[in-house]
């Protein structure tokens, strides 16, 4: 029986984790360095055991072993293989198992890569990783045990939640999210390791945590965009972001991690913001725990929330422990976290980074307060309130616009201080982009203030970031006579973090264009049509051809065939559908999108006549939506470039070259 076997693996992991947690401080305090590899191997062993359980779960799912409680809960013989495998993260217990596995993977890789590093930083980092793993281990053998034996064994199960087996992105978004979310544990563990080992004043942990933050940040960015895409493709309202508590939960740590990716540069280069950076790293982790708590405890109503039970109290205890431990450690170490550098001038990149951090943190607090407000209001005044999209849109738009502006100014300003001439030569040319985008938006019909301002700042920032590439390329070509491709490759390889960052900026700007375009110019019509009827929205004409139905293995499908017309000719066919799953009374609307670079035509089948005499179709035309997904890809590419291992310098150092000549053109010398 695979269930008890897998459960035993999880059970054995607990004393091993405890052993590591006890041994790590003992080994360091008593100076027995030979015990430290034992501490590390507890992490590896935990990884093997949790992997065993995870593989066992997948096997149980695929073989429809309904004696395993989780399989009986989400499995079904009719579900296609792909959706059977990914139902691993389709419900609470499985998602906790997957979470524990990702955490174990991160823990092992982090410790393995740094196992030979001297000092006490890594043993204490391992301690933090072990402690978090222990919490998830306890969940898995207790309240979230997915391997509970079921008797009598059912012949078949209900299958996954219909919404979760309706689109292929369900196989993409959750694992990306876990990789990003759980990955934030790693920089936190480094910070804890630094504080416990008393090495927090040395900047070693910042260098280590930087790359891991970038890895997690890249995954989290991709996950957020994939989640937007999923809700756009599946939910049928043509939107991609609703400020739902769970969406906010994924967004909050992204904001602080983004802030940290910028502020850590100030610590590395200038010795500034030491205490602030520890706070950001710890805060990011606390926010991931908080997000999990909110979405897994049922404390706040959300469309995403899983069903709950006693597990909420475990999470409450965990978040209390993490919060108190983090606050005690940070406050206790605050004396050691003095800033050694100082600001030279207000007109410098440092200023922009500080403002960037200020706005990102304010952004985070705004979203956090909006998310928790229903709870706070009920606790204090006893009234039920709900905080909806209008609050978030109104409160965050000014900050978003400011961040877009800073994204244009930051890359253009040099470190330390800028002369008036430098500022003119760097800050003025992007105004062309601002002007073009502003006029473009006005001509296209944008009239809302923030929409136009957003377009303007996107134009400014896009030119500013592209211009950095251009200046670098031109300098390399002039200095070395390289071709464009070679120059671009060497430019990026010469300073991956910098140019990866600019690329991520560009990706974000592209996505911002998509958001601004689709929200400013959305047009929508709903009509009950007979076959042959046409409907025109924003210049796009569609014609209903017919309504049909068919039986598929795991569901029944009703669909409408709609032709897209251009000058009377059919240029495409869209088939919005409704999927009926046997386990659910409600049909799952399955909109279909015709996507072009310019915009999307989004059709949803609202209702239909059983005899096929008519169908109600909602047609939404949104320009630039696909730019959001494309921008997401560019962001991830930027993150990838930033996290690539730096090329080995001739002197053997692995560190990135310091880009010293920051005034004017940047020429990064690489070894011949």
């Amino acid at each position, binding site marked *: 029986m695979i269930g008890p076997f897998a459960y035993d693996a999880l059970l054995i992991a607990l004393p091993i984790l405890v052993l590591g947690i006890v041994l790590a401080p003992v080994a360091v305090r008593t100076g027995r360095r030979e015990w430290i590899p034992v501490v590390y191997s507890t992490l590896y062993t935990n990884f093997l055991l949790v992997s065993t359980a995870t593989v066992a779960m997948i096997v149980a799912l695929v073989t429809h072993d309904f004696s395993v409680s989780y399989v009986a809960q989400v499995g079904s013989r009719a579900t296609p293989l792909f959706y059977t495998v990914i139902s691993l993260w389709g419900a609470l217990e499985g998602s906790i198992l997957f979470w524990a596995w990702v955490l174990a993977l991160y823990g092992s890789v982090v410790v393995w890569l740094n196992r030979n590093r001297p000092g006490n930083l890594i043993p204490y980092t391992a301690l933090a990783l072990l402690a978090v793993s222990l919490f998830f281990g306890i969940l898995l053998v207790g309240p979230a045990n997915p391997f509970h034996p079921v008797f009598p064994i059912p012949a078949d199960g209900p299958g996954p939640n219909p919404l979760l087996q309706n689109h292929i992105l369900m196989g993409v978004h959750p694992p990306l999210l876990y990789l990003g979310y759980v990955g934030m544990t790693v920089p936190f563990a480094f910070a804890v390791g630094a504080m416990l080992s008393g090495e927090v004043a040395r900047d070693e942990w910042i260098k280590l945590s930087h790359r891991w933050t970038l890895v997690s940040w890249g995954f989290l960015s991709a996950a957020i965009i994939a989640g937007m895409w999923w809700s756009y493709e599946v939910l049928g309202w043509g939107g991609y972001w609703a400020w739902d508590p769970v969406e906010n939960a994924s967004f909050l740590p992204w904001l602080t991690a983004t802030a940290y990716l910028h502020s850590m540069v100030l610590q590395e280069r200038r010795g500034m913001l030491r205490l602030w950076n520890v706070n950001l790293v710890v805060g990011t982790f606390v926010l991931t725990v908080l997000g999990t*708590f909110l979405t897994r*405890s*049922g*404390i*706040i*109503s959300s469309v995403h929330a899983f069903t709950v039970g006693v597990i*909420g*109290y475990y999470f*409450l205890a965990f*978040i*209390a422990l993490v*919060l*108190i431990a983090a*606050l*005690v*450690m*940070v*406050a*206790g*170490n*605050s*004396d050691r976290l003095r800033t050694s550098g100082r600001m030279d001038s207000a007109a410098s990149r440092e200023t922009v980074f500080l403002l960037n951090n200020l706005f990102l943190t304010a952004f985070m607090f705004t979203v956090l307060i909006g998310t*928790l407000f*229903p*709870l*706070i209001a*009920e*606790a204090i005044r006893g009234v*039920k309130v709900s905080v909806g999209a209008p609050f978030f849109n109104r409160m965050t738009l000014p900050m978003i616009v400011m961040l877009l502006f800073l994204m244009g100014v930051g890359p253009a300003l040099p470190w330390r201080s800028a002369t008036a001439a430098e500022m003119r030569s760097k800050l003025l040319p992007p105004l062309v982009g601002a002007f073009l985008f502003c006029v473009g938006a006005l001509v296209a019909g944008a009239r809302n203030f923030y929409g136009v301002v957003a377009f303007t700042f996107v134009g400014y920032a896009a030119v500013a970031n592209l211009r950095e590439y251009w200046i670098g390329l031109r300098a390399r070509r002039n200095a070395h006579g390289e071709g464009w491709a070679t120059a671009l490759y060497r430019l990026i390889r010469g300073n991956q973090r910098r140019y990866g960052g600019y690329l991520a900026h560009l990706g974000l700007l592209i996505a911002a264009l998509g958001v601004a375009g689709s929200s400013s110019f959305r047009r929508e019509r709903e009509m009950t049509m007979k076959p042959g009827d046409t409907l025109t929205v924003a210049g796009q004409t569609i014609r209903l051809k017919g309504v049909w139905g068919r039986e598929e293995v795991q569901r029944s499908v009703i669909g409408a065939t709609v032709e897209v017309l251009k000058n009377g000719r059919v240029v495409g066919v869209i088939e919005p559908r409704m999927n009926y799953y046997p386990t659910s009374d409600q049909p799952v609307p399955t909109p279909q999108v015709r996507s072009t670079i310019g915009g999307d035509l989004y059709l949803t089948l609202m209702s239909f006549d059983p005899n096929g005499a008519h169908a109600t179709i909602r047609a939404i035309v949104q320009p630039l939506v696909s730019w959001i997904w494309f921008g997401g890809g560019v962001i991830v590419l930027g993150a990838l470039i930033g996290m690539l291992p730096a090329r080995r310098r001739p002197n053997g150092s692995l560190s990135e070259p310091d880009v010293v000549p920051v005034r004017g053109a940047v020429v990064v010398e690489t070894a011949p």
Partner: protein
Amino acid sequence: MNWKRSLIAAVTAVPVILLFAWGFTRDPGEIPSPLPGHAAPQFSLDVFAPGQPPLSRPVGDTVRLADLRGQVVVLNFWASWCGACREEHTVLSTTARLYTGRPVHFLGVLYNDSLAAGEAWIAEMGGQSYPSMQDPGARTAIDYGLYGVPETFFIDGDGRVAYKQLGPVTGVGLAHIVDSLIAALPPKPAAPATKSRS
């Protein structure tokens, strides 16, 4: 380590944790209504579906809540497009007939629907024993803070909303509430309950 500062920092976490702990005692999905215990909003609505004798009222008759003071009112909001309204229809219609002659008035209010569709629905369901009124502009529905249909308000003899049912009513629950409200009515010298209009 600066332990004093650590302690102060740890204390700041306490309210946050207490807030979350308290949150567990709440049901975030619950939809509250300020109405129970308060005076029911007045209405004055015209009958569009007469109902069946002996509970019927003529079409076009105006029903005023104020005229029903001293008796229990069961006010049921419904619509022809509402699936759950079909579920509760038989229960409501039968219970209303069973309570004929008792001091209780069952009244339907058509919500967000056309009169023709409402009449067709009643015919399809095999009739409705009590009258239904139209609510132009859904004014009364708004006054009552309607969340959705079906929704049923139980108004006691003092004109206060005693109870509100969101979603379809069940036979046992309905009879239980109506019985307890009738029992709470002040005793009247004139024995059989009189209707304000006949």
